[in-house]
């Protein structure tokens, strides 16, 4: 058996009386794609923060590649983690181009004197960035300011930025939000292809599982301070979610899509299919 990339043991997260999740156990294997699903406020993003070592656990421990994320040393270990943020428009006045984002992913975290232009180091990096731009299909807009890009273009670059550092684990925090269904599919497939190429496991936070349904190995469903882990077929079922939420929930499969009916938030967002 291979060594897990991520080990979450008996982890709990609470803010005062509010328990986001408790006694969470999860081992992520190097090849796995895991979707983290749950309603707003269920602690999905907080889980990512905890894995990054930015948010201390109330209880339990998290290890990335065998190292506790709260140790000083492992903060450096987070270099083995790629991170994809939410799709949010960037300041249009920013003097930052798509290719600069990729350079950040490569060596943005390294202290030390800047590499001289045309040095061997700079040339190598330039080459790797050029290859990545090609791979993610960003040639047309890689030199434009990031503030002028569409959400789909920006998230393409974000995928490239996350994988270019050869991470073992990729954390994606709702990277498909505010993209149209076609783009969601494209970005999700791009991420899946690139992470296979670079052999990275993925923890993918989303509130709609449909764009990633084909590539998901397991689902971590967070709700009401409780959770379920398993394959989509095991977890995304009416009786499982009804028990999790404590109210009747209907899971409907329709033309390869999964629709959940009956979670109370659904009333607020009738246009979204999944919560």
């Amino acid at each position, binding site marked *: 058996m291979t060594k897990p990339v991520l080990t979450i043991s008996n982890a709990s997260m609470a803010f005062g009386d509010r328990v986001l999740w408790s006694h969470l156990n999860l081992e992520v294997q190097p090849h796995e794609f895991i979707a983290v699903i749950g309603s707003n406020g269920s602690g999905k993003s907080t889980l990512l923060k905890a894995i990054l070592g930015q948010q201390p656990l109330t209880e339990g421990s998290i290890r990335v590649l065998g190292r506790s994320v709260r140790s000083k040393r492992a903060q450096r270990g987070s270099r083995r983690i790629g991170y994809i*943020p939410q799709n949010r428009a960037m300041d249009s006045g*920013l*003097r930052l181009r798509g290719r*600069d984002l990729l350079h*950040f992913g490569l060596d*943005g975290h390294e202290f030390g*004197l800047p590499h001289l232009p045309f040095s061997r180091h700079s040339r190598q990096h330039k080459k790797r960035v050029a290859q990545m731009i090609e791979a993610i299909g960003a040639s047309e807009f890689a030199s434009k300011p990031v503030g002028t890009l569409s959400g789909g273009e920006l998230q393409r670059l*974000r995928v490239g930025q996350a994988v270019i*550092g050869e991470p073992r684990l990729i954390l994606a925090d709702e990277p498909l939000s505010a993209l149209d269904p076609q783009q969601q599919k494209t970005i999700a497939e791009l991420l899946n292809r690139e992470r296979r190429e670079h052999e990275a496991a993925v923890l993918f936070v989303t509130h709609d599982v449909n764009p990633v349904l084909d590539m998901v190995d397991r689902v971590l469903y967070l709700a009401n301070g409780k959770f379920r882990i398993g394959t989509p077929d095991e977890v995304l079922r009416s009786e499982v979610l009804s028990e999790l939420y404590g109210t009747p929930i209907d899971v409907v499969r329709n033309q390869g899509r999964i629709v959940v009916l009956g979670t109370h938030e659904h009333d607020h967002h009738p246009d979204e299919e999944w919560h």
Partner: protein
Amino acid sequence: MVLFDFTDYAELLPLITNSLIAGGLLAVVGGLIGIFVNNRDMSFAVHGISELSFAGAAIALLFGVDVVFGSLLGSLVAAGIIGWLGARARERNSIVAVLMPAGLGLGILALSLYEGRAANKFGLLTGQIVAVNDPQLVWLASISLVVIVTLLLIWRPLNFASLDPEVAAARGVPTRALSFLFMLLLGLSVAASVQVVGALLVLSLLVTPAASALKLTSSPVLVPLLAVAFALVAVLGGILLAVGASLPISPYVTTISFLIYGIARGIAAIRERGAVAA
């Protein structure tokens, strides 16, 4: 009234060697740190720090302490307060707006009580009349070198943290520590710049050259080169033009700096129109 006079230039030049060295180093500091001031949206903070630097210098003058030391203390205190309390941009702006008049007021009080040479007083606000003595040069050069070397060592992570903070933090870049360190470097740079261009005109050195460079290019290599080049032209050009007329160098520095910015904006506008037309 003589704005330019080059009659005794050959005799004057040796007298301003110190000023040229100090000015050159400060230009490098201003050009480089200005990039981050622009990218981190901290221009207003620079202004606030410079007023407290002025207060420190004025109080030092009043009590007969070294003026560079006073302005250094003033700007480090200001940078510390802004860095500590003003993590968010909006909060930072109001803290700066509160600190700035307080600093200016204190400085004016100290100057009013001071009974020495009037030129000393005026110089703190609007810059020196070219004379930089040897001990001052040592101060300015050491501050400049510390800032330049530190800035180069933290260049990549600071740039990452300034332009893409969320991902930088996720990648393990110590964004908070960097932001505080940056404020200290900014405090040092302001204190040094106050000595040459004066508290009111620090922005022309720490913001304008980099802003001009950022108008012209996005290249991470060209931006620092251009910013430093613009700052050098403004400062050295300003000193060389001012010396003949024995006027303060600051109006020359600020005017050149402003002209460069105007030209850069013009070029950017023409380019944009060209891009739209094409």
